[in-house]
């Protein structure tokens, strides 16, 4: 029980990761797939950010009387990863628009059907 509570941030990460992964695999709608992918990536952001927390530490700004700081590096890293995630989502959505124009649908099963018939 204490393991469950003291590391609750990691449980959230695992739950989000699995939800996102499941949506990517189970959903046939391409936009929903991208949403799932986003949730999956967000869980990793939380994994990084929460690992930077130091118990009792304050924001990493130099100030008199404060000796313990949280680690700012994971935050910086994850800023980069968020940008990457946005780029991926944007490219994915752009592809969905092109697919909609070319196939007239954004359902995985219908796209595969149309590929096989022609």
């Amino acid at each position, binding site marked *: 029980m204490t393991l469950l509570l003291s590391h609750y941030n990691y449980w959230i990460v695992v739950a989000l990761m699995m939800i996102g992964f499941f949506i990517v695999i189970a959903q046939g709608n391409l936009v929903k797939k991208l949403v799932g992918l986003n949730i999956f990536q967000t869980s990793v952001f939380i994994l990084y950010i929460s690992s930077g927390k130091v118990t009792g530490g304050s924001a990493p700004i130099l100030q008199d009387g404060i000796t313990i700081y949280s680690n700012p590096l994971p935050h910086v890293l994850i800023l980069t990863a968020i940008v990457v995630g946005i780029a*991926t989502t944007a490219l994915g959505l752009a592809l969905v628009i*092109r697919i909609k124009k070319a196939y007239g649908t954004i359902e995985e099963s219908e796209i595969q059907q149309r590929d096989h018939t022609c």
Partner: protein
Amino acid sequence: MLSHLPILQVILPLLGAPACLILGRGKLAWLFALLVSALSFCIAAILLTTVYNHGVISYALGGWQAPWGIEYRIDLLNAWLLVIVSASSTVSLLAAQSSISTEISLDKQGLFYVAWLLCLAGLLGILATGDAFNVFVFLEVSSLSTYTLISLGPNRKSLWAAFRYLIMGTIGATFILIGIGLMYIMTGTLNMQDLAQRLPPASESSTVFAAYAFILVGISLKLALFPLHLWLPNAYSQAPSIVTTFLAASATKVALYLLIRFTYTIFPSEFSQLVIPLADIFVALGVLSVFSASIVAIYQEEIKRAIAYSSIAQIGYMVIGLGIGGVLGLQATLIHVFNHALMKATLFMALAAIAARVGATTLTSMQGLGRKMPWTSFGFVVGGLSLIGVPLTAGFISKWYLVSAAALTGRWPLVFLILLGSLLAIVYIWRVVEALYFKPAADNSPVKEAPFAMLLALWLLVLGNVYFGIDTRLPVSISSEAATALVEGRP
């Protein structure tokens, strides 16, 4: 100037991409991209000779020393891969203009080269960097531009292939990101050399084990190792022909480099030996890759798709070498990385030339081309012979080193399986040779020989296949020293 070569290697194509955008469309953008790529190749060649003669180069980005700053670290392994990737980009770009003129509309051609240079920058960045997080960033730079390049393919299936690759690729890259995060949580560092020193004390923890597992699965996805290979045949067969030439010769090699780097340099050696029988898993998955992909390749009507499946089989051989391990196995892998880049670039270049003139690469559309496009057809045959592993071609050298590595470690069933795999390659190459030379053309419309630029690129590769099949000093000496350094560098 010379001391800044490691960063110039990456910055040059990265800055070349926006410059290409300004230059606009068509020929000018092509010449510029070709120039940038050729310069990258020159830099890679200089780096390789420097590393070969003077040892490892370490470059501190912005003057911030490692492990705080980002380090670019060039040793023989990645210098060798830098040469392979930049060379395959340059040769493919040589033929790119003639190839895409029939496949991509004029207003998109400028953007095509922008994406190409970004992809090149990403691939070179993965190789050059000595920082684990930097690997992820460059991986995404190269992946995102790869999805764009694939989606530019001639018909709508390319969009669907690009989307599926985007989903799979992002999952793979995110797995790698999770692994790097877990390593950072355990050690507090991202520098590869630093990680290698700090991981062994923590190697008992399940977090480090989980990190390794996430990274292995993520890389295997990018590598298209069986059973995570499903994105590759679609992506390769639907992409513009010349993009396939470039990607087949470079992208999977870079993923393999990551696998070697993480397994040999970063993670403590006992991992690959004790906790799970990783070496045996590699060999088993490699053999499965070879057979499943080769058998599927035999039944393909679309030859570009068949050769894409053959790529998965060849990745299998490389992973087998990795599984055999030791200096011999690793050397076999590194030689095959080089030779496979040569032979696959040859085959896909020939197919690109056929696609440019005939418009399709199905078996029926290739019938009788042996007379109409003699130079292209013969180029394909040489590439095919090399793929099979016929003596006097580069492929024979790879097979020789791989078989002798397996034999010297006493794995005789594996020797037999590798040779059997080559027999399957004969089958799917022979189907094409038969169509090219021994079947009458479906229609008697006149077909011109391929454009000069494509023939030039193709025959550069063909001569490379033959030359490195006879004079093996360069790949053998470099791969042997790189493999020795990797194995001895282990704690």
